Each structure stands twice: as structure tokens, then as C-alpha cells.
């Protein structure tokens, strides 16, 4: 019998990763009512940018400790190149359309970005593990874990705290709440709604890219990397409640622990349980665990 300790540690690490990868999706949905399939593309873009840039960085003999900043920079770079173009150039003309139609638009963009990635980086795998191995390892219950995983957990906590603070305590956060509640009225009162949409979309994509770039040292970066992340992120944010920040955190913890437990105790149901939990939550609480009653607008 496997001990509970490793299950918990794995679960927490996996939860942290899931939260980083998925939180942007819930942010974009919460503000713009867009279920953004390109989220997975940005994850992949971030992973490629992270892996290739740190590869170059280390090959030049630059200080390895700063490679974490390079990972961050890579995510920022791909976001700035792609996200504003997508939002300003295409998505903003679609806001009047149905939620499902916008979903399909982002699906089309996802197909386009899949190949754009191949055009930029080719089809060969990238593998840069140095940032992963750099920090050594720590021990829990007789099992060794790379310390890098602690960075993931720290990053997830920092993101959660940062987002919660921005949304609850800053002027922009409060304006954003107004935009979410009633975009037209906010516009009438002089809020620059377009800019909020642009920033929110870019921020959501940046979070996805960040998830990708900080995952890149732990995996080999290959085409099709983002495809799995899309459904996994969907599962996480749906469980917690689409558009809810605490919901995304709860969803990540639930999926993380469930998967970790199944990997340790019943590996054959690993994938099954995640989507089973998602289906169960949808069946009993269609709007997710953290949802509020939605007021009906006439």
C-alpha cells in the first residue's frame, strides 16, 4: 500500500501546475464569456518559447540561475506577439455572436496556431532540463522530489494571491467587476471596456504561456503539446465554476488530488477519473461548485 504522504505531495504539485495552466481560462471566460480554445495554443507557445530561449541562454554560457527569468520572458514575449493581434484583429468583431460561435472561432484559431508553432519551431522536440535540475532536490517520506516543483507551487500561490488582490482591492479590479456585470453601462459611464477586454484576454493568454514555459524544463516540448492541456483546463475550470477564481483553485486541487490518488492506487483509471469528476459536477451542479445563482436579465 502506498503511503498517503507521497500521494499528497504529488497531488499538491500537480494541483499547482493545473492551477497555473487553467486559471487564465477562467479569467477570460469570467470577463468576456469566451471559452478560449487557443488557451492550449498559448500553453504550447509558452513551452516552445521557454525551451528554445533557455536553450540559447544556457548555450551562450549566461548565468543559469537567471534562466527562470528567461522562462518568464519567453511567456511574455509570445503573449505580446500573438494575443493582442488575435483580440484586436479578430475576436472583437465576434463579441456580438453566440458563445458557442466564439468558441468555434477560437477553435479555428487553435488549428491555425498549431501549425504556426510548427512553422516557427519545426517538428523536432526541444529538451532543456537544466532549470529543472539546477535547484537540487528535497525529500518527503523517503522519496526525492526536484526542488523545482516548489517553484511551481510558489508560482501558483503567488498567482492566486496576486489575482485575488488585483480583482478585490485595486481600482482596475473594481472597474473590471463593473465591466463583467454590465459592459454597456460601464461603457456609458466612461470605462474603457475595449481596453479591459484586450488586457484580460492578453493576461489570460499570458498565464497559459507561463504555465507552458514553466513546464517546458520538465518535459520534452513536441508538437501537439497544447491539445491535452485544453481539455484538462476545461475540466479544472468547469469543476470549480466557469469564471470563478476560487473555483479554479478548488478545481485544480480536486483534479490534482484525484489524479495523484488514482496514479498511486489505481493507475488504470487515471484519465477516466478526471473527466468522471467533471461529468459528475456538471450533472449535479452544472455551473460548478463555486457558482452563484445567475440573475436573469430581460
Amino acid at each position, binding site marked *: 500500500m502506498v503511503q498517503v504522504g507521497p500521494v499528497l505531495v504529488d497531488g499538491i504539485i500537480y494541483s499547482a501546475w493545473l492551477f497555473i495552466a487553467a486559471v487564465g481560462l477562467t479569467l477570460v471566460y469570467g470577463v468576456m464569456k469566451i*471559452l478560449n480554445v487557443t488557451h492550449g495554443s498559448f500553453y504550447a507557445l509558452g513551452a516552445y518559447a521557454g525551451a528554445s530561449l533557455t536553450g540559447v541562454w544556457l548555450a551562450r554560457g549566461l548565468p543559469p540561475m537567471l534562466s527562470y527569468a528567461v522562462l518568464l520572458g519567453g511567456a511574455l514575449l509570445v503573449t505580446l506577439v500573438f494575443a493582442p493581434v488575435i483580440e484586436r484583429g*479578430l475576436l472583437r468583431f465576434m463579441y456580438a455572436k453566440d*458563445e*458557442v*460561435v466564439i*468558441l*468555434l*472561432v477560437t*477553435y*479555428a*484559431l*487553435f*488549428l*491555425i*496556431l*498549431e*501549425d*504556426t508553432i*510548427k*512553422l516557427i519551431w519545426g*517538428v523536432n522536440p526541444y529538451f532543456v532540463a537544466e532549470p529543472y535540475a539546477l535547484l537540487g532536490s528535497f525529500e518527503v517520506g523517503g522519496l526525492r522530489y526536484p526542488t523545482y516543483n516548489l517553484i511551481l507551487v510558489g508560482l501558483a500561490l503567488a498567482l492566486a494571491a496576486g489575482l485575488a488582490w488585483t480583482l478585490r482591492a485595486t481600482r482596475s479590479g473594481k472597474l473590471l467587476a463593473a465591466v463583467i456585470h454590465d459592459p454597456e453601462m460601464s461603457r456609458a459611464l466612461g470605462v474603457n471596456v475595449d481596453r479591459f477586454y484586450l488586457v484580460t484576454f492578453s493576461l489570460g493568454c499570458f498565464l497559459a504561456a507561463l504555465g507552458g514555459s514553466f513546464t517546458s524544463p520538465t518535459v520534452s516540448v513536441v508538437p501537439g503539446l497544447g*491539445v491535452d492541456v*485544453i*481539455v484538462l483546463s*476545461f*475540466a479544472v475550470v*468547469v469543476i470549480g465554476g*466557469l469564471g470563478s477564481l476560487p473555483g479554479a483553485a478548488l478545481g485544480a486541487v480536486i483534479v490534482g488530488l484525484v489524479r495523484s490518488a488514482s496514479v498511486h492506487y489505481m*493507475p*488504470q*483509471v*487515471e*484519465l*477516466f*477519473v*478526471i*473527466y*468522471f469528476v*467533471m*461529468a459528475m459536477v*456538471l*450533472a449535479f451542479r*452544472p*455551473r460548478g461548485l463555486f457558482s452563484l445563482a445567475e440573475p436573469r436579465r430581460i
Partner: protein
Amino acid sequence: MTRDRTPLLLAAILAAVVAGGLALPQWALFILTVACAQGLVVLGLMLLLRAGLVSFGQALYYCIGAYTAGGLARAFKIGDIFVQMFAGSALAALVALVLGFLLARYRGIFFGLLSLALSMILYGLIVKSEALGSTDGFNLLPSTLFGVRPSAAWVRYAVAVAAACVALGAAFLIHRFLNTPLGRLGPAIKDNEIRVEYMGASVRYAIHVNYVIAAALAGAGGALAASTVGHIDPEMAYWTTSGEFVFIAILAGTGSVIAPFLGALIFGAIHTIAYDVSPNTWQLSMGAALLLAIVFLPEGLWSLFVRRKAA
């Protein structure tokens, strides 16, 4: 009121496939058969789309159909394509009948997400199932028709004709269904659900029926695809497969029962040409095509024909 030309058109298409198929090369017959299989699935999606529902999990039934065909071939040595399609369709319909009680309560994005979750559950199960070949899937022998195994030179033609018969037959039945009171409820539900209820019709029942029919069609399409391609794997239940079906459905439009097959054929053509011209950027071409369709043809390709008729 013009006369209903759809049955005539369907018969003409069938005649064209039977006669023209003799002249077509093997690869074209293959594309035609796959288009029939996908068209069947999309025909079902069209029913749901008419009611304003987008299922991102139609691959669930497609996969059930395919694995039913594969299971029959492997366990009972039943290679008859009609038996396989019927069994695949029946099993898919049965599963949909059960799941429909749950799904018929959902609308909009939640309908899509729940159907997505359900198809991913099947994916997760098959991937980890050694007996079903895990991620590799397994191969199927070429199909027989009514117990006769056509010679290698003729099998593609025979299967293509059989596929066209089933596909166009299904299209005809759906066409009839759309003109029944129950079939006509679809667009009304999309328009205003509450009014439909006020008229005394049950929205949930109508959606449930549409959902089961859609699943039956997807099951038949899956079985056909399995025996045509000769290989099945869990990717058939993955969300990208569902995405392709939605893609074709949007491309085709909901204007006619012929549209899904036209859409599937064009999808196959774009796919083949794009892959031939540049193997690494075919998805880019597909994505661009989908975007263009959404922006310039929101009612799908079929709207082109309708407009021309009106002018």
C-alpha cells in the same frame, strides 16, 4: 410552395455514385466512403444544431460505433458491413437513450461541455484498457457485404456504394423526420424555448429524441469508418474528433439533409489537398477555412444554393 426536390436529388446522387464510382480511382472511392461516414455523424449534429445545441462529444458515439464494429469482427468474426453498422448504431442509440435523460436538461455551453466530458470518459477508459488495444487500437479485416467478400479490386467500390445507400437512405429518413411535428420543433426550440412549452410541446422530450437519433447516426458512421479505414483507436473518442465534426457541421450549414455530406466531402477534399501540398500546415488551412466559413457564410455552404434559387 415549391415541390420538395430533396428525395429526387438524393436518388440522383445515389445513381451518380453507382455509375460514377466505376470510373473513380481507389483513393477517391475511399474519400467518398469516409465522407459518407462523417456525413452520417454530422447529419446527427445538424439535428442538434437546429435546436440550438452544439455537442462537443459526438465522438463518443462515433467511437462506440467503431468499437462495436471492431468487437463484432474480432470476437464473433462478423465482418458484414450492414450488421456492423446496425449494431454500432443500436448500441450508440442505447447509450444515448440513457445519457439523454441527463443531457436533455442542458443548453448552450453546458450541453457542449457535458457531452465533451462524457466522450473524454470513454477515451480515458479505452486508453487504459489492454483488452481493447489501449492507445494502439486494433485492425479490422476488410468488410463483407451480405456474406460475400468482394475481390480486392472491387471492395472499395462495393463498400462505397453500400455506404452511399445507407447514408442517403438515412438522409431521406431524416428529411422526412424534419417535416413531422416533432422534427419541426427543433428550430422553434432554438428560437424560443418558453413559447414551445406554452404551445404544449415538451422541449426536453424533443431534445432527447433528437439526441438519440444523432447518436444512432454517429454510431453507424463510426462503424462504417472503422471497416473502411480498417483500424480503430481511442483517438476516435478524443475531443479533436468531435471538433472536426462540429467543424463540418458549421461548414455545411443546417439548410438541407444533403449539406452534411457535401460538407464532409469538401472537408475531405480540403484535408487531402492541404495535406498533399504542405503536410505541416494542413491544420492552418483547415482553421482558415473554418474562420472564413464562420465570418462569411454563417448559415454554412448550403446557404449559397438557397440564395441562388431565390434570386
